[in-house]
C-alpha cells in the first residue's frame, strides 16, 4: 500500500500543475475552522492565566495586556466569537440536514456521527500499530477525526454553558441551585484544561505532526488535497466517488504558492502558540 510519505515524494517529483487536486473543505468550512482555532487560542491564552493565577508567567501575561481585567475582557470577547461560530455551524447542520434533507449529514459514510465501522477501525488501527493486521481503510472522516469533532462539540456546550453561567451568575441563579455556581467553575476549568491539553497535544500530533502529515496538513487551510493524498488517506471515499462517477465533480484547482505559504504561516503560528501554551500548562499543572 503506497503511504502518504510516498505520495509526498511523488508529488514533489511531478510538477505542481500536473497533480490533480480535490476539494475536501468548502471556503465556509475553512473560515469557520479559522474562527474556531483563533478564538480557541485566544481563550486558552487568556483562560490559562486565570486558571493558574499564582504562577509567574500568568502574572507576566496579565501585566502584558493590562491586568486581569483586560484578560477577562479578551476571554469574553473570544468566547463571543466562538459562540457565533458554533451557532453558524449549528445553522448549517439544520439547514443541510433537516431543511434540505441532504443525505449523509446525520448518518452514513460521510456523516460525523460515529458508526460500527468506526469501532472496527479503532481496533483495526491499534492492531496495525502493533503489527498484528493491515491498516484499516478510512472513509471521509476517520474515527479520530470524528472524536476531535465531537470533543470540540461537547466541549463548546459544556465550557460555553458553564462560562456563561459565571458571566451572568445572578441570572443563572434564578433556575440553578446555589452549589451549581461552585460547580460551573470546576467544570469550566477542568473541561477547558482537557480541551487545551487535547488540542495542543493529541490533535496537533494526529492531524499535523505525525510523520504522514509532518509538519502540517494544509488541507484545512487550502481546502484541497492532491489526488495521492486523497487516495491514501481516505481510500474508501475516493473509491466510492470514483465508482459513482462523482470524482470529477470534486476536482479543484491546485492551491497557489501564496495560498500555501499563507497557510503555512498561519498554521505554524497557531501550532507554536499552542505548543508554548501546552508547555506552560503542563509545568503549572504538574507543580500544583
Amino acid at each position: 500500500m503506497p503511504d502518504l510519505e510516498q505520495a509526498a515524494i511523488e508529488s514533489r517529483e511531478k510538477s505542481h500543475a500536473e497533480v490533480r487536486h480535490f476539494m475536501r473543505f468548502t471556503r465556509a468550512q475553512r473560515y469557520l475552522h479559522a474562527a474556531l482555532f483563533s478564538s480557541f487560542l485566544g481563550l486558552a491564552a487568556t483562560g490559562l492565566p486565570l486558571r493558574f493565577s499564582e504562577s509567574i508567567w500568568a502574572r507576566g501575561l496579565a501585566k502584558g495586556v493590562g491586568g486581569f481585567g483586560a484578560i477577562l475582557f479578551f476571554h469574553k470577547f473570544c468566547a463571543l466569537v466562538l459562540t457565533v461560530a458554533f451557532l453558524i455551524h449549528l445553522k448549517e447542520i439544520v439547514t443541510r440536514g433537516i431543511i434540505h434533507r441532504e443525505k449523509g449529514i446525520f448518518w452514513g459514510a460521510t456523516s460525523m456521527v460515529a458508526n460500527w465501522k468506526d469501532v472496527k477501525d479503532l481496533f483495526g488501527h491499534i492492531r496495525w500499530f502493533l503489527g498484528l493486521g493491515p491498516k484499516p481503510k478510512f472513509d471521509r472522516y476517520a474515527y479520530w477525526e470524528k472524536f476531535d469533532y465531537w470533543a470540540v462539540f461537547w466541549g463548546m456546550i459544556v465550557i460555553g454553558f458553564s462560562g456563561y453561567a459565571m458571566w451572568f451568575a445572578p441570572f443563572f441563579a434564578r433556575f440553578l441551585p446555589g452549589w451549581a455556581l461552585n460547580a460551573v467553575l470546576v467544570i469550566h476549568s477542568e473541561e477547558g484544561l482537557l480541551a487545551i491539553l487535547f488540542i495542543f497535544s493529541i490533535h496537533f500530533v494526529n492531524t499535523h505532526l505525525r510523520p504522514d502529515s509532518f509538519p502540517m496538513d494544509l488541507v484545512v487551510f487550502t481546502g484541497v488535497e492532491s489526488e495521492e493524498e486523497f487516495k491514501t488517506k481516505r481510500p474508501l471515499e475516493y473509491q466510492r466517488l470514483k465508482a459513482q462517477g462523482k470524482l470529477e465533480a470534486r476536482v479543484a484547482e491546485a492551491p497557489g504558492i501564496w495560498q500555501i505559504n499563507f497557510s503555512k504561516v498561519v498554521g505554524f503560528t497557531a501550532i507554536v502558540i499552542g505548543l508554548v501554551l501546552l508547555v506552560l500548562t503542563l509545568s503549572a499543572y504538574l507543580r500544583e
Partner: protein
Amino acid sequence: MKTASSIALALGALLAVAAPRAVWAETDCLSCHADASLQDASGKSVGVDAHTFGASIHGSLKCGDCHAAIKEYPHPDPITPVKCESCHADQAAGLAGSVHSVKAEHPCTSCHGDAHAIFPKDDARSAVYPLNVPRTCGACHGNDAMAKKHGLPNVYPLYIDSIHGFALSKEGLLVAANCQSCHGSHHILSHKDPLSPTYKTNIPKTCGNCHAGITASYMNGVHGKAVAAGDLKAPVCSDCHTAHAILQPTADAFRMQSTPICGSCHKEKLSTYRDTFHSQLGSLGGYVETARCWDCHGAHDVLPASDPRSPIAKANLVVTCGRCHAGANMSFVQYQPHANARNRKLNPALYFVRLFMNLLLAGTLGFFVIHTILWLIRSRYDQIKKKSTEGDKNA
C-alpha cells in the same frame, strides 16, 4: 500720616529691643560668645546667637541658670555639662526608663535641637513641632546603618510614604499621626514592653486616640474581643495595616496585599478562596474589584456568620453579595465562596463533579496519548522501512 507711621516704627523698634532684655543683661558672656565662630578646645562651636536665644523658650533665663558651674573667667576645665533635668525632672525621669536612656547617645538636644534655639512644641521652628517630628526622629531612624546596629526596621521611609506621612508632609495636617503620636516622646518603650502604647494589646487604644469610631467598632468584632480577652494571636490594627507603611485601604496596593495577611492565620480559608474565581481574577493586579476577605466579612467589626449583625449572616447575604452582583437572589447566595472540591464531606456535589471531570480528563488523555504514541512509532517504522527499500533500489 507720616508722623504716625514713624512713631509706630519707633515703638516697634523699642519693643524689639525691650523683649530680649534679659539677654542683654548678660553682656559679660556675650562679649565673647556673641562671636559665632568661637570654638572651645575640642573645636565645638560655643557661639550664641543672642537674638534667636532671646526669642526661644528659654529666652528669659540667664546664662548662669543653665551653665551653673561657670562662675568665673577663665572657665573651669572640663566644664560640667548642663543639667536639663534640674528643671525638667519629669521628662528626664521618663527618658531614663525609655529605649533612649543612654544619655551620651541621646542628649536632649538630639531631639530638641540647638540648646540656644529651643522653641515651644507648637512653634513651627521647634524640632518637635508635629510637622517636624518625623524629620527629627528620622535623623536616626531613617539611617540604615543605625537601624541594622539596633536590629530595627528603617522606618522613616516607610512612614513618610504612608497615608500618615502623606497627610503630614504633603497636606501639613497637624492632626496626622507623627512618630510621637503612637510612641510617645520621652518615655518611649519597646513594643515588647506591656506598658508601651505600641505593645500589641495597647495598639487599639493608641490608634483609637484618633480613630475612635473604628476602634469602637473593632472592639465589637471577634478580633477585638479576642485581644481584649488576652489572645495575643488575634490581629490588632497594625497586623493588617502594618505599623509604619500604612496605606489607604481603598488603594489597589492595599487590596492586593491584604488577603495574604488574613490568610496568614486563616490558612484553610485562604486556600479555598484561592480556588475561586474571586481569587483567580483578583490575585494578580490590574483588577482589584473582586471580593477580598473584608468585602464580605467586614473589616473591623468582623463577626461570625451566626451573629445576625454579620454581613455573612444568612439573612444578610443577598445584600452583601448584591453590593457587587446586582440581581443576586436567595439561590445566588447559596454559592460557597470557600467551597472545597477536595472535601467529600463538606461539598459532596462539588467533590463528585470534580472527580468526574478529572476522570474524564485523565481517561481521554490517557487513552489518546497511548494511541498517538503507538501510531507515531508505527508510522515512523514504516517510513524508515520504505526509505531503506528505496535506498536499495537506487543503489
